[in-house]
């Protein structure tokens, strides 16, 4: 078979079909048994070329992929979910472990108020229905990093259900057409994290560090409404921004505060969903999209070659760029859920149902939390577009880069230049330099004040735009100097002396009579040549538009 061709539709990829019929929607729980009907003998039909606009051909040779996500976000809190030991990323092994975390007999779980608030806030931000009564359960399985042999989670009645997450993908040649999408949220639940196991290859043994055991997690379950890696990665990014804006989680994938598992299946449009596989170990946003796309492609190829997809768990190997099967699940995992006997139901209140005279430390008021919700990224972007007239995709870029929005706002505060110009400088020049040297905004050698000053000089027409770029480069390289200093050092100021400029124009025209002739004959490009010559004479210190005006005036007189 020739080189693999992606023949499934995903708007962000600009593949052929926009109107694929997705067929019946199934929840996460189904179907593990149904297989895509194997059209085995027909895979020899000519493959469709990529990215050509063709009439939609429904049926056999189109594939639709279905991606659902389970996202675990570590709650940003001082202490753990059910115990008073500290939550911290790097610490000596087993130093942040209480007796409960080590599951010593005689210990009981005590719920952390902050974690409940974090869950409610996240649920509200994601348009969920908050369950006023939610329950805790035990999920049993044996693993070395789970000392109790069970995990306390919320399986029957989670704290928030039925929400939605809106995100936007950019398509088109310049990636400037916005498509707004939504993914439904099945539920959000509170659960415990497990410890960490490290494999000591030298002595062939497994070492256990329980510092992470018991840390509060928010599990956000996204329905399988996504159809490719890019959509999934964008949705995850948006969720990250929301969690960070709320302060409920730092959602840093590199530090393990945000973990994503993907459930992927493929099917022919109009037919039932295919067997799904679960892909784990997706540790970064970059690999997330790659891994999902690889798995989709793998499943398509497998089915086209007449094979079948097993309902298994796979892991993404980032070095090889492919998914590999993980441990073999012996049949379905049976977690033997039981209600957590040591925890009564969790009751939440709103302003209407708040019991009178209740201890405020012991009750959680959903309405109060709703009022205190900080501004969500979506609202921030809308404000940027309205206030500064910038394009939507620019607002996305500003929010996507850590610290960039603050930088931009600081520059805006100190400069008189127009927002459009500031946006352009920040997103193109400044960001360009950062990316080239792989720096974060916080590591930038140029401060917002410096850029603001530079833009002021530009705005006042003290320097030309070409000169401004040079100044910026110098600012970047040499940190300490101010733009004004650099301008005077390098003599980059625009010529202010009108008379001198007039004389120069006159002189240039006399030196190049040929060009003047051309111009008088009506050749439009001759004027540009003249302007160029004058600019050279001024050592690039004159504004081309001013030169043009002057020349035209002199020629007409």
């Amino acid at each position, binding site marked *: 078979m020739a080189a693999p061709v992606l023949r499934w539709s995903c708007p962000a990829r600009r593949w052929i079909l926009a109107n694929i019929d997705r067929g019946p929607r199934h929840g996460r729980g189904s179907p593990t048994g149904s297989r895509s009907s194997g059209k085995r003998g027909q895979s020899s039909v000519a493959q469709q070329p990529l990215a050509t606009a063709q009439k939609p051909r429904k049926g056999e040779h189109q594939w639709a992929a279905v991606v659902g996500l389970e996202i675990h976000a570590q709650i940003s809190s001082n202490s753990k979910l059910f115990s008073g030991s500290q939550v911290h990323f790097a610490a000596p092994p*087993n130093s942040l472990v209480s007796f409960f975390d080590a599951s010593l007999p005689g210990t009981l779980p005590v719920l*952390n*108020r902050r974690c409940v608030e974090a869950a409610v806030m996240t649920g509200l931000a994601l348009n969920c229905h908050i369950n006023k009564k939610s329950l805790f359960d035990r999920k049993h399985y044996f693993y070395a990093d789970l000392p109790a042999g069970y995990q306390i989670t919320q*399986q029957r009645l989670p704290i928030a259900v039925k929400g939605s997450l809106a995100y936007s993908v950019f398509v088109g040649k310049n990636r400037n057409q916005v498509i707004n999408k939504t993914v439904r949220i099945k539920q959000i639940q509170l659960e415990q994290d497990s410890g960490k196991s490290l494999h000591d290859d030298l002595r062939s043994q497994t070492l256990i560090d329980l510092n992470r055991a018991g840390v509060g997690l928010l599990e956000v379950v996204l329905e399988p409404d996504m159809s490719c890696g890019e959509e999934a990665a964008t949705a995850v990014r948006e969720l990250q921004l929301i969690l960070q804006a709320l302060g409920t989680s730092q959602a840093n994938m590199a530090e393990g505060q945000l973990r994503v598992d993907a459930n992927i299946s493929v099917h022919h449009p109009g037919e039932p969903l295919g067997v799904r596989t679960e892909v784990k170990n997706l540790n970064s946003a970059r690999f997330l999209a790659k891994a999902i796309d690889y798995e989709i492609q793998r499943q398509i190829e497998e089915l086209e070659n007449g094979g079948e997809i097993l309902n298994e768990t796979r892991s993404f190997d980032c070095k090889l760029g492919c998914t590999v099967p993980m441990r073999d699940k012996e049949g379905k995992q049976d977690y033997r859920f*039981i209600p*957590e006997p040591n925890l009564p139901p969790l009751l939440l209140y709103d302003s209407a149902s708040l019991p009178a005279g209740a201890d405020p430390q*012991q009750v959680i008021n959903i309405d109060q939390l709703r009022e205190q919700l900080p501004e969500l990224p979506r609202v921030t972007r809308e404000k940027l577009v309205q206030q500064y007239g910038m394009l939507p995709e620019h607002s996305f870029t500003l929010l996507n880069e850590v610290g960039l929005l603050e930088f931009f706002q600081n520059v805006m505060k100190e400069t008189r230049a127009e927002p459009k110009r500031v946006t352009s400088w920040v997103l193109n020049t400044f960001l360009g330099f950062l990316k080239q040297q792989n720096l974060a905004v916080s590591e930038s050698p140029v401060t917002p004040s410096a850029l603001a000053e530079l833009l002021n000089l530009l705005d006042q027409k003290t320097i030309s735009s070409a000169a401004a770029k040079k100044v910026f480069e110098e600012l970047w390289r040499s940190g300490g100097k101010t733009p004004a200093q650099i301008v005077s050092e390098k003599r980059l100021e625009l010529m202010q002396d009108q008379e001198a400029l007039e004389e120069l124009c006159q002189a240039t025209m006399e030196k190049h009579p040929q060009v003047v002739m051309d111009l008088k004959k009506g050749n439009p490009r001759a004027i540009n040549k003249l302007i160029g010559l004058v600019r050279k004479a001024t050592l690039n210190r004159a504004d081309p538009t001013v030169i043009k005006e002057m020349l035209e005036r002199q020629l007409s007189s």
Partner: protein
Amino acid sequence: MSVQPSPTLFMAAAAAPSDGVILARRLLRLRSPRGGMWARAARRVLRAPGGGGRGFASKAGGGGVSAGGEAAPQERGRVPGDVIEHLERLALVDFGSREAVARLEKAVAFADRLRAVDTDGVQPMESVLEDRCLYLRPDNVVEGNCAEELLQNAHRVMEEYFVAPPGTRFPKFNKLSHSKLKI
């Protein structure tokens, strides 16, 4: 009768349809017995509802807790072999002898007597603590920093890490023999 969550009861519940657990809790709610209860009970036993986790659907597949429980063993009182194997894997218990399995079957039969109670229209009780307030702890760090003490409990340690027992990377732990469990 006080229903303490004992391992036997839960294993029995796992083998039998999980209604058993819910029934036990419903039982606690009832204040007065109803007339004609035994006649209804007899009918119920004969109807023998099948398995299926009514609220305990396992996350992975949406199937019930009791994979093999559909056989509804009340009538014969027998627990099928594959269910025993399944339980052994899940709970890391070694049933070992025929005696142990017989013991299990007796436990299931004992718990099945709960079905004699008519619980139509009665809300299940999830927890005996349902009237209690769930205490919310403030988010302060008050524990931890006792690595030495904790590591003293471990069979093997390696520089402040617990060393997991062999074969625990992919769980194939040593199974507890049923006779050793004093139930």
